[in-house]
């Protein structure tokens, strides 16, 4: 039941102080006339309502969450506690500089650490999420070419295995998109790349490890091809968790990068956000970064503005509290902990893959990085059991399913990313669940079409939802 049905007109909470100045009414021409409503609820009922909603929500603390490409690692509590300090939460974004030195120190130190990890020379925390970072990074590339009067570079090369945000961001930045096919090994087809890279190429967007969970061993050749054609290389940091502390994107030939602090650096996803998508770049792109940028001037932190900046990509300085959490995480892991987390993420993924691959064929052979992609094409053909059926069956085991039907180049794909914070026991239990489900798929495939059985709802009718959208509560829809 929604808040609107639970609402009891006349109910409410005593929250504010009584007015201690004379009452003044808004000028009548501006006063609202139209009807509107909000739920009228006592605190006690409201509290229970949300407890009920929380019970119907699966978070990382509820169980295994191997959602590929999303890096659902554990979110340490100390990070939350530190981001909730009044010394951060009570700070107005337009306070005088001398009163926000601690905030700038957070931004500056996080920038230093993330530049060391990524091999970049500067970073802006203004982008609020990964896709926002992509958009920002692409505008840096656009501004760079324009600054050189190189106006014909209007194309961005995007592998067909890329995240959907890549082409969408490139399109928002005003580029046309050239799709680069993958080779049989799931990596960039070098010949296709060579053929596509030319004097109209503004840049290449690449995730490495890529979305099939493989480290593209031709990476130096790839970035070289793009550079030789006069383009720049953009690194989509969604998969950085596999390689942080092992190899720096900046040393693989990338010029600009975004990170997902809400993936790699352990900040929670909040049911869809807030994230933080800082954009880093090499020296020659620094003048184009969003304004303002935190710097140290004469032992004080200060804001610097560049005349060549692409401008702001949002108000103020980004999702600041998320940066506080990420900095706490980086300080905790430190120089050894960062590569250790990466290596264990890769270890956990390979362990699971090894124990599953006899039943669930991987899309590509060999060692994987932090995630792997299974293809259920054969099972679908032979038993009519789809990736969706397997995913929904996992729900009955208390496991959040892997990412389904992505990347698009793998038919009936399931993309599994266990992350480093899962124990061997959790992985073993998940493997057992996968194997039991497989056995059912062979013996009683129809049973899986009906999954899940134990959740608060069964499979929802998504077609109906999109055909006649109900996107707000109304009494007649109940």
């Amino acid at each position: 039941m929604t808040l609107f049905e639970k609402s009891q007109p006349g109910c409410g909470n005593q929250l504010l102080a009584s007015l201690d100045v004379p009452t003044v009414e808004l000028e009548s021409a501006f006063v609202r006339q139209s009807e509107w409503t909000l739920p009228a609820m006592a605190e006690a009922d409201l509290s229970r309502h949300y407890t009920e909603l929380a019970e119907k929500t699966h978070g990382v603390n509820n169980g295994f969450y191997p959602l590929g490409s999303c890096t659902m690692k554990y979110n340490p509590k100390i990070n939350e506690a530190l981001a909730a300090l009044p010394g951060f939460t009570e700070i107005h974004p337009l306070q005088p500089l001398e009163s926000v030195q601690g905030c700038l120190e957070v931004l500056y130190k996080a920038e230093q650490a993330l530049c060391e990890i990524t091999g970049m020379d500067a970073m802006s925390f203004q982008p609020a999420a990964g896709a926002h970072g992509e958009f920002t990074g692409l505008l840096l590339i656009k501004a760079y070419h324009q600054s050189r009067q190189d106006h014909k570079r209007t194309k961005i090369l995007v592998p067909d295995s890329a995240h959907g945000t890549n082409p969408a961001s490139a399109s928002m930045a005003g580029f046309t998109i050239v799709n680069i096919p993958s080779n049989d090994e799931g990596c960039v087809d070098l010949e296709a790349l060579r053929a596509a890279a030319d004097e109209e190429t503004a840049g290449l967007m690449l995730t490495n490890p890529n979305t099939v969970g493989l480290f593209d061993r031709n990476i130096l050749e790839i970035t070289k091809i793009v550079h030789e054609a006069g383009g720049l290389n953009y690194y989509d940091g969604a998969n950085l968790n596999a390689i942080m502390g092992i190899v720096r994107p900046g040393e693989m030939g990338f010029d600009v990068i975004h990170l997902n602090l809400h993936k790699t650096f352990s900040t929670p996803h909040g049911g869809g956000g807030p994230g933080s998508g800082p954009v880093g770049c090499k020296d020659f792109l620094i003048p184009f970064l969003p304004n303002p940028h935190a710097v140290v001037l004469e032992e004080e932190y200060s804001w610097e503005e560049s005349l060549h900046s692409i401008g702001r990509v949002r108000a103020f300085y980004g999702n600041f509290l998320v940066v506080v959490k990420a900095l706490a995480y980086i300080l905790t892991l430190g120089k050894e902990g960062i590569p250790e987390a990466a290596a264990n993420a890769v270890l956990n993924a390979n362990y699971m893959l090894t124990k599953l691959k006899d039943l669930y064929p991987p899309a590509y052979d060999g060692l994987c990085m932090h995630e792997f992609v299974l293809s259920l094409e054969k099972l679908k053909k032979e038993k009519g059991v789809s990736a969706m059926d397997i995913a929904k069956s996992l729900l009955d085991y208390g496991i959040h399913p892997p990412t389904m039907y992505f990347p698009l180049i793998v038919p009936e794909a399931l993309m599994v990313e266990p992350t480093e914070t899962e124990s061997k026991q959790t992985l073993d239990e998940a493997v057992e669940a996968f194997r039991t489900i497989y056995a059912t798929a062979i013996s009683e495939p129809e049973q899986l079409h009906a999954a899940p059985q134990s959740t608060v709802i069964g499979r929802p009718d998504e077609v109906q939802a999109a055909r006649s959208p109900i996107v707000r509560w109304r009494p007649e829809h109940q």
Partner: protein
Amino acid sequence: MGSYISNTAQQRQAMLKTIGLTRLDELYADVPDSVRIQSGLKLKEGLGELEVSRQIRSMANKNVIYESCFRGAGAYRHYIPAAVKSIVSKEEFVTAYTPYQAEISQGILQSIFEYQTMIAELTGMDAANASVYDGATAAAEAVALCQERKKRVALISSCVHPQVIETIRTYCFGNGMEIRLIEEKEGVTDLEQLQEALGPEVACVLLQQPNFYGNLEDVAQIEPAIHAQQAKLIISCNPIALALMKAPGELKADIAVGEGQPLGLSLSFGGPYLGFMAVKEKLMRKLPGRIVGQTRDSQGRIAYVLTLQAREQHIRREKASSNICSNEAHCALTAAVYLAMMGKSGLQECAHQCHSKAAYLRKELEKIGYLPVHARPYFHEFVTSCPQDVQSVLQRLAQQGILGGLPISDNRILWCVTELISKEEMDRLITILKEGKA
């Protein structure tokens, strides 16, 4: 020190053996040796929780928390009921991802559905999305949504928050739309100039209500001319003011956007904040980002799902209505809990107190020579002159734990008063200003 890994060294070794390897670094066989980090990251060694806590706390302690805050300009300190923070910090809400798997995400999905309903009610519009990054990006997305092949000009009022205008400029550097600024006249948008600027090439007009100077725009006067040119009207609004003020829907706006931070989110040095966005039904399928819809499950029970996904990047790729993927869901949840805690009468009371207190301060300031610059109706912000050097006035206030209004020129201050400010605090402000004058 720690890296939050559960497995012991022995377990890791056993796992490696299962894979057929002996050392962790063998997992990275595909990484070219020439680029492998050889001598470790140049970072400090990892620290225990206590030490991390000390270091971050020392940074927090270098910031100044002002006892009284008379500064708004896009970020507002309001009272946040205790229940709001408690409810939204439930681990399930904090640690879930975007609710792709509806069967185990009904809680999050329903909370967003309820949020969308409240935003639609508040703005008087038909449909809201699940949020965008902040008020500035909401405005930029709204402008982008209006572009058509022959309509590529956006008319933006100069009375819109400057950082919102800058953000729109950046987005337009991407999408190629042209921005024409409409000048300010006596604290509001110059409607005559706006009228003249309207033409068939205009895709949309963006006004802010109340505007950056705190003044109310006469939207009703200009709305017919905007729609006569088939341009869309976008109103960026303060959500708390909507409890008193004519809603965008009432003003015949096509799109309502705004910064949702006043709805239960702390100032937090500018983020995370909440961009809200609501439209009339005919634009629903052009909205960017996530939208939650109501449907039924296989047994006919009410169910909530992410819907109209054909608009989105993971389906449409370069043809998507926006690239947005992660949004500000947890901030949207916070806003919903705040709105439900306050209720309609609570929000009205809050808005009413903001306005009455602002009126009180405006009058008191006027008495000591801080004269209102504009004679327009306003909500909870207004601009005054400053009879003395602005910076020294503000410094004097800062020494007394007061964050004064925002200096917007050498002799003008933009003040803000919310329900949190008591009469006593305002009287104290006046006393300090007066003392400085003597």
